[in-house]
């Protein structure tokens, strides 16, 4: 045998029966993973651990170039997206229908209410009093939100909300002044849980007829805090931060729960969106989330006060029981993909609501086209939709996709 070939032969002999020492998954880990299917939190956790060590470009590649290379020119794809967006927008353009679909009366709701961001004045926050206490009796006030700039944790046990009703800071009941009747019972106490930092806040519901009671009872996690601690007034307007905020939309989980409400149409809507989003592979959502959280801002997920994920230092105290990208709601996984969907509610007023309709479509497009093609399509879609639902029309029709693009890019560049 020639010497050259001996080299490859030697290499073959060396590697053919090679064995490597750990670290590799132990039997215990393997067995645990085997017991669960691929969508299990354990599996996702393992994947997440893997992605965490990957360089940004690789993650980016996995997200946006996860599929075949786009073989199509971007312009037609964007145009198709644009017209589909426009068409979808036209179909949804009737605000009254939209409102009725979401089962609330727009006469009593302002855009500010819908955009329940952190800039709400203190008067929007309510005191909680025991339900059987008359509104005039201030002695049993158990909590009062005070300064608007500070969000002090409210440690009140939230397990038994039915015992409480809400009072505005001025002593009136929340809905009494707005034309919506309040019978001063817990069935009408329009409270939502707003989670901020590590505290739990009770807030006047901006959506009075969406049966928050049901939401509270059935949907809202009682001791779950999901926090985007840096997502405050200073940071939320930075495009990349905003994007992470959007992706991280779980912060507003309670409002999603409220919107899902007891209305049949709401459930249909939610079911429709969920059905579409379920198609979105968990790991890719996770990667997207991780990538954004890694390069943008601090996001942490905590359950019952225990922090499960902190994007600043990458701490993951536990992956097994709960994915860092999701949480368990009433014993069922509440995937981050809901967050993706939900974020779209975060816009203002009509736009916020309408966005809810097309966000899943955008995600679906991403999924369907699986790569830069999908991205282009989504930009087109965004512009088409924003043409109709941003007041400025054409200008925003151009601005929105640019914003979308820029914020995405910035996120990865950070």
């Amino acid at each position, binding site marked *: 045998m*020639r*010497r*050259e*070939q*001996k*080299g*490859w*032969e*030697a*290499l*073959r002999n*060396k*590697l*053919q*029966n*090679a*064995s*490597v*020492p*750990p670290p*590799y*998954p132990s*039997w215990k880990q*393997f*067995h645990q*993973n*085997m017991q669960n299917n691929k969508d299990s939190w354990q599996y996702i956790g*393992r*994947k997440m*651990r*893997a*992605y965490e*060590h*990957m360089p940004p470009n690789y993650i980016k*590649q*996995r997200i946006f*170039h*996860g*599929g*075949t*290379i786009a073989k199509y020119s971007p312009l037609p794809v964007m145009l198709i997206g644009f017209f589909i967006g426009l068409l979808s927008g036209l179909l949804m353009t009737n605000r009254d229908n939209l409102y009725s679909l979401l089962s609330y009366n727009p006469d009593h709701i302002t855009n500010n209410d819908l955009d329940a961001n952190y800039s709400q004045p203190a008067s929007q926050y309510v005191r909680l009093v025991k339900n059987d206490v008359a509104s005039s009796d201030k002695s049993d006030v158990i909590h009062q939100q005070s300064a608007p700039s500070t969000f002090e944790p409210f440690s009140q046990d939230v397990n038994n909300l039915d015992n409480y009703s809400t009072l505005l800071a001025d002593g009136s009941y929340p809905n009494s002044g707005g034309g919506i009747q309040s019978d001063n019972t817990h069935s009408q106490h329009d409270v939502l849980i707003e989670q901020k930092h590590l505290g739990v806040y009770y807030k006047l519901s901006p959506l009075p007829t969406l049966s928050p009671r049901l939401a509270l009872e059935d949907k809202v996690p009682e001791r779950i805090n999901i926090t985007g601690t840096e997502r405050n007034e200073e940071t939320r307007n930075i495009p990349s931060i905003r994007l992470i905020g959007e992706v991280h939309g779980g912060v507003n989980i309670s409002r999603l729960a409220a919107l899902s409400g007891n209305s049949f149409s709401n459930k249909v809507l939610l079911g429709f969106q969920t059905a579409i989003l379920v198609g979105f592979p968990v790991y890719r959502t996770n990667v997207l989330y991780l990538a954004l959280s890694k390069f943008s801002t601090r996001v942490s997920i905590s359950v019952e006060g225990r922090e499960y994920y902190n994007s600043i230092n990458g701490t993951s105290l536990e992956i097994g029981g709960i994915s860092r990208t999701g949480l368990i709601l009433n014993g069922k996984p509440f995937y981050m993909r809901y967050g993706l969907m939900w974020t779209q509610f975060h816009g203002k007023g009509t736009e916020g609501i309408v966005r809810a309709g097309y966000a899943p479509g955008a995600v679906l497009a991403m999924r369907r086209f*699986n790569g830069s093609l999908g991205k282009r399509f989504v930009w087109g879609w965004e512009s088409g939709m924003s043409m109709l639902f941003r007041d400025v029309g054409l200008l925003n029709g151009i601005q929105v996709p640019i914003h979308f693009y820029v914020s995405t890019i910035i996120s990865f560049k950070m």
Partner: protein
Amino acid sequence: MWQLLKNLAKRKGKFKNDKELAKACASGNQEAKEELYNKYASKMFALCLRYAREHAEAEDFLHEGFIKVLATIHKWEGKGSLESWMRRVFINVILEKLRSNKHQVYNFSSLQLEGPDEDDNWNSPELNVPAPDPDIISQLSEKEIINLIQRLPEGYRTVFNLYVIEGFSHKEIAQMLGISEGTAKSQLSRAKNLLRKWIEEHFYFKKKATKNA
């Protein structure tokens, strides 16, 4: 002491030979499965590492591979060694995973575009590529060589592994990957060139570092 004995007993295994082990695994014996895993995981992981881009991907391969092995172990007829059969299963799983992964670099069919020298008159290219010095190979650790193989582009790495290490023919590789024989040959040739260069460089730097130390 007790722990030591326990570990020793564990290492030795409850089952006399691979046939018994496989039979027990097929019948769902949990201990047997554990023993099988512990016995072959390190070897299979080395195999996975060779095909993977990085550690995490290799972990995926290992996971999928063992699931497949445990699910199909009843099909092993006892001809040849269990390890060889497992290797074959693992390779199939890995190739399947690489194929199903839509990641650009896994797209074997794109390899067709890479080889300008794709023709049927390829004159035994593997013979034309100088191999690294066997002495150098012997002085490098398995891990070091695996790391270098991992640096190869996906297509190169897969073809190299299949041809040089597993011993498949170009025809078989072409069938497995859905590429032409010419492409397989050109990929191999390039892989060998790159790897030889890297091995020599690595050895040189390692030697230099040792000398300086």
